[in-house]
């Protein structure tokens, strides 16, 4: 009789990569469904196209690389990348944005580095940033929410025409709140006036505002994030450090210059802040592994997001901030490691003043 001869441990926690990915997708589901509901058919089409493109490119890459397709495709990582990418796209963007995005995310962002676990940069953010810089027009056309089946919402066929037929929809475009505030401030209007017209914290919390497909509802994303924390899929360090840094910087600057700098509430509820804090910055592959490293990484993302939003050329800084901090991850991991048991921070064995060892001459 022979049994499996394998190294210990011989028991295993009920976890797997697929389960992790599945839980993240589950946490994203409420915000996604809400986004699809309020941006209607074109959003659904774009979402499906992006998912299909990512999975297709993943399968193609695996075939070309001669790797087994099924296990990698089934681990949910490509699906999650696609999901996150789609959530950050303008909801009525044309279909080819999703396809090009999928190509950039999966092939350039992930498979060229060697597939799952090997990529230096967050694939969804690689695609998002490349799309934004390459197709600024398509990537910054946001619309006012048009809930599915509401009077003004495009029907199924009209939705097809918008997503696949290039039909224009000028009548309903609206800038995202971040873009709007930046434009108005640029024209020298006082902040209070701009915000009073455009920013309602309750609307921003619920997400009934123009914005990317799945980024608008801070509340639903926050609930999803808390679910992941509860499940232990993510740890609190990165979200807390990132949000803490943004809140701190925004509070200080808005106190110093209330006419130019929006407050913390605005920064936290607008754009992709919450999505980023819980779902993108926490991407395990591209973030540091140690406790202190994760705190530093989160703080770095927060600082860069705030700086780009406030002084940079783009209204939203999430994508750039993430990529820049991703590039720092290997260095952070190299320098910020946990302290080893029985050693000091520099790796020398601990020493105590009242060492118990009896000196040799006394022992005799």
């Amino acid at each position, binding site marked *: *009789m*022979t*049994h*499996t*001869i*394998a*190294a*210990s*441990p*011989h*028991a*295993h*926690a*009920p*976890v*797997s*990569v697929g*389960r*992790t990915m599945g839980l993240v997708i589950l946490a994203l589901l409420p915000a996604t469904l809400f986004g699809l509901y309020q941006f209607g058919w074109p959003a659904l089409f774009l979402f499906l196209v992006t998912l299909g493109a990512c999975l297709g490119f993943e399968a193609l890459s695996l075939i070309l690389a001669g790797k087994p397709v099924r*296990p990698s495709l089934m*681990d949910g*990582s490509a699906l999650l990348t696609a999901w996150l990418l789609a959530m950050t796209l303008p909801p009525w963007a044309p279909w080819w944005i999703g396809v090009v995005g999928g190509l950039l995310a999966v092939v350039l962002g992930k498979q060229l580095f060697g*597939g*799952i*676990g*090997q990529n230096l940069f967050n694939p969804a953010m690689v695609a998002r940033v490349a799309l934004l810089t390459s197709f600024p027009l398509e990537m910054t056309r946001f619309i006012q929410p048009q809930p599915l089946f509401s009077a003004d919402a495009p029907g199924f066929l009209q939705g097809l025409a918008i997503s696949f037929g290039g039909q224009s929809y000028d009548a309903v475009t609206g800038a995202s709140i971040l873009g709007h505030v930046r434009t108005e401030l640029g024209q020298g209007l006082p902040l209070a006036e701009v915000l009073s017209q455009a920013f309602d914290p309750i609307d921003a919390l619920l997400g009934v505002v123009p914005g990317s497909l799945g980024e608008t509802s801070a509340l639903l994303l926050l609930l999803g994030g808390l679910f992941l924390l509860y499940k232990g899929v993510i*740890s609190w360090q990165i979200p807390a450090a990132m949000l803490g840094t943004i809140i701190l910087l925004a509070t200080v600057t808005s106190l110093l210059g209330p006419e130019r700098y929006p407050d913390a509430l605005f920064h936290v509820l607008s754009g992709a802040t919450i999505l980023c804090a819980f779902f993108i910055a926490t991407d*395990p*592959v591209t*973030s*540091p*592994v*140690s406790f202190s490293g*994760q705190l530093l990484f989160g703080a770095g993302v927060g600082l860069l997001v705030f700086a780009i939003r406030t002084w940079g050329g783009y209204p939203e800084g999430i994508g750039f901030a993430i990529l820049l901090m991703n590039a720092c991850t290997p260095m952070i*991991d190299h320098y910020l*490691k*946990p*302290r*080893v*048991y*029985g*050693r000091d921070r520099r790796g020398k*064995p*601990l*020493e*105590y003043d009242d*060492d*118990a*060892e*009896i000196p040799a001459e006394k*022992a005799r």
Partner: protein
Amino acid sequence: MRLFKIRGGVHPDDRKALAAGRPIEDLPLPALLHIPLQQHIGAAAQPVVQRRQQVAKGELLARAQGMISAPIHAPTSGRVVGLGLYPANHPSGLSVRTITLQPDGEDRWHDDIQGVADPFALEPAEVAERVASAGIVGMGGATFPSAVKLNLRNRYQLQTLVINGSECEPYLTCDDRLMREQPDAVLDGVRIMAHALGVARTIFGIEGNKPEALAIMSEAAAAFDGVEVVKLPTRYPMGSEKHLVQTLTGRETPARGLTADIGVVVHNPATAFAVHEALRLGRPLVSRVVTVTGEAIAEPRNLRAPIGTKIEDLVSYCGGFTEEPERLIGGGPMMGQPLRELRVPIMKGSNGVLALTLAETNRRAPSPCIRCASCVDACPCGLMPLDMAAHTRVGDLEGAVERGLMDCIGCGSCAYVCPAHIPLVQYFNHAKGEMAARGRAKQKQAETKRLAEQRSQRLEAQKLAKREAMAKRKREAAAKKQAEAEAATS
């Protein structure tokens, strides 16, 4: 008592309910016992019996060899029928030197076996001597000769004896049952060890998932000053001695050091029981309690079995298998060793025999690391297992060592939580083994070099001596010639 937090750790499903309710039973004498000569850390014991020799229970079969070793005694009375090679209780399945004993069924103790009336009247050195000659080793699984640890008082200023009743490995219940059923004997052994170590304070740590043992031991210990029973948090690896000591004292053992460096010595309750038997009754360590459990075992049990009992005999006494186990393990599921076959014997350190089903092992094919940091969070030693494994995988073992490979205690917490099911412990064991082999090779090389240099020096010296002798002879011959010539001319 204030407890201190340790880093990392995991909470595996403890599955102790399978066997915890079963009182310890004596296993009926098996037909044959296979007693390996290497059951402890250190040098193997040297046999002192002949084939066909009749031995009594407790009679010496093999004596200790060297400083770190332990003698081995006859687990029952009977006849030595073999002195050769037999498969070891080890994943390799290789054979080791083993004495085979055929019990005569009388189970008759040797006449010389006699205890001491008052162990506390003995000198500490004599207690240690008796523990050594009883062949007692660490029975939690480490099998380090206990007397060597008792003698640490010569080199360290010891303050505290810690008894490791955490039994943090899932499934195992042998220590739990022993504490519940023999609290006074265990406590007596503990106090004898404290006497031998010369410490005033004893802390008896028991994990919170063993409330009965906690209550019973606390009650038993109440009668004695200086013995404190403490409820430990239930977390793996609480039973790692360095982490246990940290939990109890707040102090970390310095890297590469012993807990004795901070004045603490740790022993196991089963070892304490064996010390009690050795001192009070004069009985050497010839049997132990083994938990036979797992979903594939028909009736999980705690059995007191003679050393050398085949696992086969234990399993069949427990009703055999309900299904073919996916894995057969000696020890606990976290750090135990997989076994190839059922005919291997149990040893002094065998605390469990587990027959696990596929559902229990939750084995899956490994997939690439997603750097989720679960292993970093779980590591009680503050290491980055993913990093060490990555360096090991590409053969950069020095890189793995730089990243703390030698500080790894092999507890398996990292591999237990890995969502990618990467066999991290396998990587580390491989790297540790390879580094040890390299170290030996290096030592061998240095030794060869030293010998070669000595040889060439020796040859050189010989040559020189020869040349000198030749020159001397020449000089003498010349002098003689000259003298003769002078004599002739004069």
